């Protein structure tokens, strides 16, 4: 590939701190994100667009909930589980939250071991993260089954009150669950590469043909933490509100 000649001026460009530094980076007529690998910048921009998608879902949920004249179903009771002879409110959702946070924790361990070139532990923690994600999706499938079969909640109506409860619930948690499922597949793919030693040998990427390295694990981590991040908002605004 032809590359334009780079002129080495022999001096490091100084960068001012704070706001002038941002202006300098963005106006320098080169790359705005210096020192940031392109893959990471692209992942962040994708996550930004995904943020807007989830924002729109949560916003439409807010709008329909505020504008309905019927009472909103009591999510605390609907998501309760019958354990040991009494109803524990929201317990399944709480467990799902802890599972997802734990998988975020194992993800940072994977990134950490990756950058320290400890191949096996990196792959192990990636697989543990995938396991956490799969557990989460499994529990969500259980939750959906219970809601649809036992409680009779449908996207167009339910026995507890406002019909919008079902439509927003299935839309938001369904979209989030899809993200988790894709993340699990993504995690397994990266874990396979790590295990095979791709990043130690700097084996070229399948799509990019560029030399790969452990940054791929960090970029994967960004996606995974984002999925956890979205759940924080869903848990607070949908389940707890």
């Amino acid at each position, binding site marked *: 590939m032809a590359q334009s000649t780079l002129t080495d001026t022999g001096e490091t460009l100084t960068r001012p701190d704070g706001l002038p530094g941002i202006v300098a980076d963005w106006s320098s007529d080169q790359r705005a994100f210096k020192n940031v690998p392109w893959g990471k910048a692209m992942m962040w921009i994708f996550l930004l667009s995904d943020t807007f998608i989830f*924002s729109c879902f949560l916003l439409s949920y807010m709008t329909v909930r505020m504008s309905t004249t019927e009472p909103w179903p009591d999510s605390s009771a609907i998501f309760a589980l019958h354990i040991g002879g009494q109803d524990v409110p929201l317990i399944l959702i709480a467990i799902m939250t802890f599972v997802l946070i734990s998988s975020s924790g194992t993800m940072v361990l994977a990134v950490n071991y990756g950058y320290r070139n400890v191949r096996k532990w990196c792959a192990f923690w990636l697989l543990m993260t995938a396991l956490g994600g799969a557990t989460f999706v499994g529990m969500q499938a259980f939750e959906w089954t219970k809601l649809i079969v036992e409680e009779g909640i449908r996207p167009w109506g339910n026995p507890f009150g406002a019909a919008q409860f079902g439509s927003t619930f299935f839309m938001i948690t369904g979209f989030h669950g899809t993200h988790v499922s894709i993340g699990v597949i993504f995690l397994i793919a990266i874990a396979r590469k790590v295990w095979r030693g791709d990043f130690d040998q700097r084996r070229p990427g399948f799509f990019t043909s560029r030399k790969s390295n452990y940054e791929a694990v960090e970029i994967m981590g960004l996606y995974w933490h984002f999925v956890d991040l979205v759940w924080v908002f869903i848990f607070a605004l949908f389940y707890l509100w």
Partner: protein
Amino acid sequence: MAQAEGQAHVEGKAHVEGQQHPIGVYLKIWGWLFVLSAGSYAVDYFGLEGYLRWTLILVFMMLKAGLIVAVFMHMLWERLALVYAILVPPVLVLVFVLLMTFEADYTFFTRGIFFVAGS
């Protein structure tokens, strides 16, 4: 942060080599996420109501989101040009929230007039 970044800039390596931080930082944040999650669950468990409930939910939510983005996603150590490019646009969503609050109030108001009272 600016100082740490300047340091990395001088050494020129820290960022190129990737985000390497002591594992203890992550474990500490991990623990805090558990505590904060337990806190937000407790809000529901003890059945707090009204403004206290909503305030606590939002505080726990923002603290958790902040810790995840800052430490787990390494925003604390990224260059400001990237941090601002990613974190400023979502703030504008708040304007959208405000607009939809007015819209929802208006819809609720008209529904009250035309559907509930008149039926």
